[in-house]
């Protein structure tokens, strides 16, 4: 990789505004296909399911939760690392986050939106979902705040607002920079978005303080969101789900799958928006180290969960363990262990961490493994509960697979629109890493 000449300030502005304004035919092609795929594979099957009933999915009596809930947990997982990564690294002042944190935060926001969409698809009668929101109504009925699902509702609204505020506040200076370079409807849009930001020292100082406070608030919020999502399962007395280790297990899983998601996105962003000079191999190197750390942590907690199950010795726990390790879903389980625990060990080698293609492959495999993990948590536990005569097998149907693929396409749609509306790399942060114009260090 030849070392690129460090861009000057002016070049930074030009590059990023160019990614914003010029939209080549390839972009429209990508956006068109993504939109088409998401409509055909997500909204049409969903509408069909709304008319005929959730029975289209493969769920049956004992395992009443299927891949829709796995989608929900997977997308919530993907949404975590964006904010966590940018918030944690902002507090630790690490320089290499500056180029990637904006798109990571955007990934958080859109993954959250897709997650709540998947929740709507999961519900049996989603047209009454508004009953789960605390609004005064003539029936004098309120949602049941004792339920972990209501923790979900509150946590996700808090996290949605939190991460969108965090993204917006960080992007105000960039909106101002773009405001001066564009015209027409974009000018009005960016003037409104930048709230008349002038870049005076007083504004910078206030921004710095506010941004740090938000970062400090977002981190516990993100951890609480995913432990609340794990409490949907851990609060039950189903033998496979009723473990106290579920909250940290889900949070680690979330960060792990989110970081892998970031690596994938970095690669695509770098390749198709020619941001080679901003997203450099050091980013991939550091992310690789982070992935290695998380994969070891995840493997440890997984082993921990199995160990506590085995140690309890109760017939229900042992049966769920056997079923998970050697039962109907065993190949999926061992595939997951291979993808999420064994392959990432290759990240120890620096050459692997810095070669982009292998990082992409490893991150995609990790995300596949994590999706399987979410699916297994549901199926291996729900299909074998306390009464052996009522055990059953769950296999996803075509409708569920198409809805998952549709949700990925929808995510790509959101992201493509984001890249054209909000500058995907934060200009003022990148400028900080460069030396001031023609000052020779």
């Amino acid at each position: 990789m030849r070392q690129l000449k460090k861009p000057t300030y002016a070049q930074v502005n030009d590059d990023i505004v160019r990614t914003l304004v010029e939209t080549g035919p390839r972009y429209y092609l990508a956006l068109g296909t993504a939109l088409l795929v998401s409509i055909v594979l997500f909204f049409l099957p969903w509408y069909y399911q709304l008319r005929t009933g959730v029975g289209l999915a493969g769920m049956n009596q004992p395992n009443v939760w299927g891949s829709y809930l796995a989608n929900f947990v997977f997308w919530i997982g993907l949404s975590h690392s964006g904010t966590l990564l940018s918030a944690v690294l902002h507090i630790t002042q690490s320089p290499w986050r500056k180029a990637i944190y904006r798109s990571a935060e955007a990934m958080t926001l859109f993954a959250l939106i897709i997650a709540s969409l998947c929740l709507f698809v999961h519900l049996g009668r989603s047209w009454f979902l508004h009953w789960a929101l605390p609004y005064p109504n003539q029936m004098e009925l309120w949602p049941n705040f004792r339920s972990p699902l209501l923790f979900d509702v509150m946590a996700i609204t808090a996290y949605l607002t939190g991460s969108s505020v965090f993204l917006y506040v960080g992007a105000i200076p960039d909106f101002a920079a773009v405001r001066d370079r564009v015209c027409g409807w974009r000018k009005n849009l960016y003037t409104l978005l930048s709230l008349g930001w002038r870049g005076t020292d007083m504004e910078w100082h206030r921004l710095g303080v506010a941004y740090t406070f938000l970062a400090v608030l977002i981190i516990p919020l993100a951890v609480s969101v995913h432990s609340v999502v794990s409490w949907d399962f851990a609060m039950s007395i189903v033998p496979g789900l009723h473990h106290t280790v579920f909250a940290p297990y889900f949070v680690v899983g979330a960060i792990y799958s989110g970081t892998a998601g970031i690596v994938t996105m970095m690669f695509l962003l770098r390749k198709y928006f020619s941001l080679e000079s901003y997203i450099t191999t050091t980013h991939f190197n550091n992310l690789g180290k982070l992935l290695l750390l998380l994969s070891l942590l995840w493997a440890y907690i997984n082993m921990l969960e199995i160990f506590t199950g085995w140690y309890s010795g109760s017939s229900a726990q042992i049966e769920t363990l056997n079923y998970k390790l050697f039962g109907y879903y065993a190949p999926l389980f061992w595939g997951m262990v291979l993808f999420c625990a064994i392959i990432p060990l290759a990240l120890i080698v620096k050459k692997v961490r810095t070669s982009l293609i292998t990082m992409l492959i490893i991150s995609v495999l990790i995300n596949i493994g994590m999706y399987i993990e979410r699916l297994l948590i549901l199926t291996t536990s729900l299909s074998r509960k306390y009464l052996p005569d009522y055990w059953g097998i769950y296999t996803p149907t075509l409708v569920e697979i198409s809805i998952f693929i549709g949700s990925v396409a929808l995510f790509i749609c959101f992201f493509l629109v984001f890249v054209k509306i909000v500058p995907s790399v934060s200009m003022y942060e990148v400028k900080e890493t460069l030396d001031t114009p023609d000052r020779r260090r």
Partner: protein
Amino acid sequence: MSISVLPALDASKKAVGIFVVGLIAFVIGYWVNRNYFSDATPVQPIEFSHRIHAGENQIPCMYCHLYARSSRVAGVPSVHKCINCHKVIATGRAEINKLFNYWNEKKPIPWIKVHDLPDFVYFSHKRHVRGGVQCQTCHGPVEEMNRVTRLASLQMGWCLECHRAKKVENGRDCWTCHK
């Protein structure tokens, strides 16, 4: 040059204006439908006037609606009961002829329901009549109505309010009113 948010707002002022007009129109349209096209007073196949029967002639409610004290449904009088009186009283009127047409063709009169609760609601006239609730509380002053109209909303909140006011035992338990 100088910078402020206002010029950008001006551009969108026109769009916001149009939206507000649309909103106001929406509210007006809804209000017009509710008040002038409401289904609270449907036109019945025979212009039966409660005011004449229950108001002036003081016929008690239970005379026609027999089962109000003994069953869930209050029951609507059979055609035979109408014929009993109208064989003799006021036989010439147009409406009474319509009644006799139905009777001669042996077809029941297809009355249109004014107070109709959804199917999942368990409402027992017996419990309310024996509980001392007057017919007028829910059906309104029927003895003054030429054409029966629905005054009460018959919504859940309205029922709950009365149950709380009257301190009905288990009044707020879901299965008291749901099936």
